[in-house]
Every structure is written in C-alpha cells, then in structure tokens.
C-alpha cells in the first residue's frame, strides 16, 4: 500500500520535538525517532493509519513505555487529520519489546496511565512545546 509521504512528514514534525523523559534532548536528537520511522497509509476517506517505530536509547522497560505514551498523547492532541495509531519498539532493540508494544497499544492501559498524576506530569513535560 502506498505510503503517504506528506502525511508522514507531518507526523514526524510533531513527534521529533518531544523531549526524552530522562535526558535534556529531543527524541530526534537522540535518534529515538527518525523520518523513516513513520509510516502513514490511507485506510479510508480522509482517514489514515499511522505506524511509528521508535528506538529507545536504553533497554529500560519503564522509559520505553513512557516514550510510547508521549508519542501517543502528543499525536492525539496535535495531529489534525483523522487517524488510527500504532506504536512499536523497533524490533531487536529491547528484551521485552512484545510486552511493551502490547502495553502502549492498549487504549485502556494508556487511559489509566494518563490518570496517574505522576506519569501525567512527566508526559506533559515531555510533550509541551517550549514557549
């Protein structure tokens, strides 16, 4: 299925400025996300499937899920077109990637996590654009 390059760039523009939860760098600077890690396919009239494959810097489970959460939340808020989102850890970069992928794509887990004030605070700091 043909990739929509423009839409993919639109997505990348939103996610590249997300800050890493631990380091004072953006996900782009740390190469956690790259232009090529975004895939966008049209799945209906004005509706797109967005797939992101990110590479965490360290093999630490909680940070990977946190990055997944940041990606999801920022796109939910900022992406202007109708979309369904799938987020995955780049294969081979993590020991429990299947577990992490399942967590970050479970919308109930995501919703519950965002109600946790501590997690929410961290996510807000990572996704909020500096003035």
């Amino acid at each position, binding site marked *: 299925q043909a990739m929509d390059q423009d839409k993919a760039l639109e997505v990348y523009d939103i996610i590249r400025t997300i800050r890493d939860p631990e380091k004072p760098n953006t996900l782009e600077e740390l190469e956690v996300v790259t232009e090529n890690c975004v895939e966008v396919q049209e799945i209906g009239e004005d509706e797109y499937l967005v797939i992101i494959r990110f590479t965490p810097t360290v093999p630490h489970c909680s940070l990977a899920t946190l990055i997944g959460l940041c990606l999801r939340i920022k796109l*939910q808020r900022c992406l202007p077109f*109708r979309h*369904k989102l799938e987020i995955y850890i780049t294969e081979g970069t993590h020991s429990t990637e299947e577990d992490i992928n*399942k967590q970050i794509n*479970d919308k*109930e*887990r995501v*919703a*519950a996590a965002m*109600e946790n004030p501590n997690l929410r605070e961290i996510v807000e700091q990572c996704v909020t654009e500096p003035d």
Partner: protein
Amino acid sequence: MGRGQDWGRGCAVRRAVPAGPLWSCRAVLGEGHQRTVRRVAWSPCGNYLASASFDATTCIWKKQEDGFECITTLEGHENEVKSVAWAPSGTLLATCSRDKSVWVWEVDEEEEYECVSVLNSHTQDVKHVVWHPNQELLASASYDDTVKLYREEEDDWVCCATLEGHQSTVWSVAFDCSGERLASCSDDRTVRVWQRYRPGNQHGVACSGAEPTWKCVCNLSGYHTRTIYDVAWCHLTGALATACGDDAIRVFEEGTGGTEQEPSFSLAAHHLCVWRALVTLHCSASVLSTSVEAEPSLRKRPRVSFSRHMSLMARAVFPVSFLE
C-alpha cells in the same frame, strides 16, 4: 472510546420517560468515584446499580425516590476495576481488575456485601467478567489472551476452564441464551465461538473428569481491521454484534448451512459497514483456526481470498458463497 476524549468521572443515570421517545437525565452520581467510571451494571431486580472505577473501588447505589444513594463501596482491588457484573440470582456480584484478579461478592437480605472469593488464575489484567444466563458460572476475559470460567465448588470458587486460542488480549465475552455457547472478541481482530461439551458427549470430545470442555467451534477472522472491544449475543435472535476500533459495528447471524458442531456465521448485509456482499464462512470444528482474508474496502466490492495453507482444504471443508 473517542479520540482525545476523557472518560467521565460520574455516572449519569438516564431513565426512559414512558410517554415519548425522549430521554431525560434523572441523576448525576458525581461523588462516588475519584477516577474514570469504567462500567455500570443494573442488578436483576433493578433497584441497585453497581459502578466499577479506575479508582480501584466498586460502588453500589440503591435507587431512592429522588435519586440514588451509595450504600456501600467494595474495596480490595489493587488498581483499576475494569468490570462488574451481577449474577442472574441477584445475590452474587463479580468484579475484575488490572491486578489480575477476579473477585466474587455475595450480598444478603440486609444489603451486606462480603467477598467470598479472590481468584488469581489470570496472569495479566482482567478486562471483563460476565455471568452465565442461568447458572452460577462466571466467565472472564483477559490481557493474558485467555478466557477463564469459574464455578463454586465446596464453599470456594475455582477456575474450571481456560479457553486458549486468541493471539492477543481478549476484551469481552458473551454467552448465548442457552449458555451452551460463548463468544469472545480480541485484540487479535477475531471473534471466537466456543461450545460446551459435557462428559460422555456423543461427539467424541474428551473431558477431564466430570468437568465440561469448551471447544472453539468457530473463528470469525478477516472481518475486523482493528481491535474488537466488545461482543454482544442477542438472546432473542441469536445474532452477534461486535464493536470494533475501526469505527464499525458488525452484526453476524448464524446461517442454516451449519450444524451445532460446525456453526456457520455470516455477516448481515444490512449493517452499517460498507460490505455489499454476504460472505458465508463455514468453520470446521476439526481445524482450530481458519482464516479467510476479506479485504475491506470503502468503494470496491470486497475480495475474498484464502491464506495459502487453507486453499487445499477450501473446496471440501470451506464452501464460501459470495452473494450480492
């Protein structure tokens, strides 16, 4: 579950006004929970409402003349309660949670609730619990990809069956009106229908001791393009309805071409999805998983093709009729 929407903190109770088609909001129960209310369930008698919340509690509300009063709060789960369900008898209640457990509660005539069992059979979050329509049998759906069944045995509750087969989280289950069948829906984008076989059954299905076996007799695959969050089995018509993350509701009806051991479900042509053809799929009980890839398309007629390993069996076992 909409895009960017927060699930509400309160329960709004709406009661139908008999005179006309309009619904009016009779009560807003905003003080019971501190976090998302995930599920609500009416008691069989209609006088009580149970609400399950991400705040790890379950509230029981009693209908009063001018509203609802929270008469008790069931505590014990370690984190989000995902579901609550009343048994048909009205004296039992089940709750389940991300803490992997299912709790069974008993209520007496004095409206006293007591936890009678904590079931730790699942290895991951339990998404949903559902009672059998006419027996004290409980089913649970889990993030661990299984469905489990529980019943009472000598003063305690035990897990009497585990239904394996789904490749990802099972979000919901539903019994048919007889209770001999169970439908489950999953993140793996399939719906499975399970049939109960009792010991000594005529179909040669092996049972362990006196325990019935549940066998998957149908796998509806290729219809849904994203996670299936809910399934409902109409006790009147036998129709199956599904709620899917691809924004569509699908209704399946059992066709006359199948048998009890090999039911045939077809997608009803009149539902709101864009299918313009009726695809009939016969699922053989001897093959555990079937796969008919039907390509969903907004504008074109759906094409039906078989996955390679099934094509040899297709003619004999899987007649597919494509009607317009």
